């Protein structure tokens, strides 16, 4: 059935379909609709959706619930993300699955609660000390909010890692037509759980650094030792010993090893094109129109819509960049936050940014950069 529905509503629905059973939230425009929808729906589906007194508590509640074995999620915008970032580092270090939907709005600071932006790419991707890159997915339509929320849960649970669904005000809160039947199903295998009984469990045990340690819930028969401090494979505080250094490498290695599978760029190729428009989120929508206009003018141009921002989807990009000499990257922020991050994956190609702050990038501006 065709419905007029927002990305935030579909994000909430996808969370339930993905097995989310715990949500804690603090209100913030333009993410509050996720909170409101889950408060209404999650208890009917066997879960808990609770309010917290601030964003610091919201994500800590989620991490606590996830340590108990419950797939968990929170939702916020840039100002709330800033408060959460301390605990995002904890989730990465302590290997706790959690999904955080970040609906970007205009910054800096309070900025514009009801104005769109793509200004939090750096704030989100570099929130964790040490250069660690956790998965960040980026929908550009309401339907993709559904798909990418499913992907976020799939990878959070599979990798025992925080995963961010990074949408923006325009994509998340504009109602548009979505056909229910076209929404994909993605069955999550969930966490790989320890089934060895009460003895012998080590919270962070792995053989190869890219392996994901088996999960056991706090409160189960196997004793859990979880920590955000540098630790060995047993979860005990240690530093500067080879095992601990291995754990520190492992935290990124497990994510990087999954890059070929979790990296996703939706390409719309045109034969013989040497220009690629590479975009994400709301700006990918204007890019789609700009590419269509350029083609109608006889220009050969390809389009790439980034559905995974981080880790850099180098495998998908490598395939999509064949024959491309010039890359146009529209995004709604100063200086090209993603352009700078992705530069290393673009080789010696000419790279052109199309940037604007405080208003939508228009298709005509992108068209100018294409031709």
């Amino acid at each position, binding site marked *: 059935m065709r419905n007029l529905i927002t990305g935030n509503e579909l994000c909430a629905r996808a969370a339930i379909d993905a097995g989310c059973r715990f949500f804690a939230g603090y209100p913030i425009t333009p993410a509050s609709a996720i909170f409101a929808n889950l408060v209404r729906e999650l208890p009917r589906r066997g879960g808990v959706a609770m309010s917290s007194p601030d964003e610091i508590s919201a994500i800590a509640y989620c991490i*606590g*619930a996830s340590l*108990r074995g419950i797939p968990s999620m929170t939702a916020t915008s840039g100002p709330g993300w800033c408060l959460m970032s*301390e605990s995002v580092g904890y989730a990465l270090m302590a290997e706790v699955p959690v999904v955080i939907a970040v609906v970007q709005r205009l910054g800096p600071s309070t900025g514009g609660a009801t104005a769109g932006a793509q200004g939090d790419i750096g704030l989100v991707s570099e929130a964790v000390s040490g250069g660690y890159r956790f998965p960040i997915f980026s929908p550009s339509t309401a339907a993709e909010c559904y798909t990418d929320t499913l992907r976020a849960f799939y990878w959070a649970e599979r990798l025992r890692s925080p995963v961010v669904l990074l949408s923006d005000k325009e994509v998340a809160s504009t109602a548009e037509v979505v056909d229910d039947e076209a929404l994909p199903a993605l069955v999550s295998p969930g966490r790989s759980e320890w089934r060895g009984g009460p003895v012998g469990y080590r919270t962070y045990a792995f053989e190869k650094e890219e392996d994901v340690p088996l999960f056991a819930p*706090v409160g189960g028969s196997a004793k859990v030792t979880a920590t955000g401090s540098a630790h060995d494979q047993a979860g005990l505080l240690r530093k500067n010993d080879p095992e601990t250094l291995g754990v520190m490498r492992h935290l990124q290695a497990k994510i990087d090893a999954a890059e070929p599978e979790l990296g996703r760029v939706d390409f719309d190729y045109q034969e013989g094109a040497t220009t690629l428009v590479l975009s994400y989120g709301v700006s990918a929508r*204007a890019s789609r129109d700009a590419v269509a206009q350029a083609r109608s003018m006889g220009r050969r141009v390809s389009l790439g819509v980034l559905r995974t921002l981080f880790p850099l989807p180098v495998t998908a990009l490598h395939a999509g960049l064949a024959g491309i000499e010039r890359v146009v990257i529209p995004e709604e922020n100063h200086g090209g936050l993603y352009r700078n991050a992705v530069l290393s994956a673009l080789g010696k190609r000419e790279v052109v940014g199309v940037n604007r702050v405080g208003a939508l990038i228009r298709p005509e501006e992108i068209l100018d950069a294409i031709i």
Partner: protein
Amino acid sequence: MQSSEPAPAPFLADCALPYCKGCGHSLVVRSLADAMQQSGLAPEHLCIVSDIGCVGLIDRLFPTVHTVHTTHGRSTAFATGLAVADGALCGGRTRFVVVIGDGGSTIGLLHLVAAAQLNVDVTVVLHNNHVYGMTGGQASGMSPEDWNTVTTPDGNPLLPLDMMGILRAAGAGYLARELATSRSLTGRLVEAMAHPGFSLVEVIEVCTAFGTKLNRLTGPEVRALAERTGEPLGLREQRLGRRHYAEVARPPDEPTETGTRVQSRVVVASALKAPLRVVVAGTAGERVQSAAALCARLATAAGLYATQKNDNLVTQGTGYSLSEMILSPSPIHYTGIDAPDAILAVSADGWNTVRGLARTLAPGGVILVDDTIPGVPEGLPALVRLPLRREAGRDDAALAALAWLLARTGALPPQALADAAVATHGEKAAGAVRAIAWGAAEANRGGD
């Protein structure tokens, strides 16, 4: 006579404790281990959630219970999530014990307040040694007045926070203060862990690295210090009756069907050949956005593509309210409206917000403005003035304007909009139906 029951497993590891000589933490850890043993709970049903500071060195000391070592001040919040999930979704068999210092309890004060307010099954052991020890002896929010610390060399000018008073006000059901050296401490911890809901035991001790070095303190003086920095020692609060949050949040056993958003069931065909970009603006609370939503849902049911986004003042209930809506026979990517095909202003608030768009009107576009709105330049191209508010009423003026537009452009039959209003609101839609009929009739009269 021999007991057939095996001796309970010792909770404390057989190793040297990592704390400074004379530090109260060693006494608290021993009391906590004894209390856990006396509680009769199996180790797998106990979890220590530790904060940052010397209290955070506890993981190794309790080799059989679950341990979660967290970040500074946040331990209570992590424990709250654990306890709600455990109680609401996992049968509620686990007791969570937070170990936190005085520094952690002030940076994480709101987490303690919230845990008390939620009444979660969490026991907090607040190690109050009146100073930040691990970072070098700085004053904390619980340092006694006049105390010498590294950051208050002339004496602490502030009064220490009264944690009992703060948490009592937040609804804590069990509160106690004890000296680390007290024989009552173990019993208090047993009581606290058995209390259904939130409990906190403040343990008064002295940091031997900094507290005693900078302030003259002997054993009896610690008791005097405790008495002048807060409520008397002993049990301070013990009451039942409030429901735990986990009980409140526990979902029903049987899942129920999710309610889906009301979508228009009215079946209708559209004659729209090109995108129609509309800005409709009015005053908050006058159903501008819901009128646009009804129209966009009707378009969706008619097989069109539609987008709708809303804007209003941050106050929500006052000032302007507007919707930007695109109806199109083909998919819509860019949702901005740079050249509107129609600007509909049904109140002065609305007109003042969108009047600047008049100069961007698309060729062939139209501007419809309520005829009571002052200051509308008569020379505007394609301007139509109609008594929208008078004829349709303020709450249905936007619907009347949209019906006028649908009739004028042939995008959708206005009657279908009226049917959609009835399908959504039933008898309450009578005014809307009249407004739509009036708007459509005005368009058919060729009101420009």
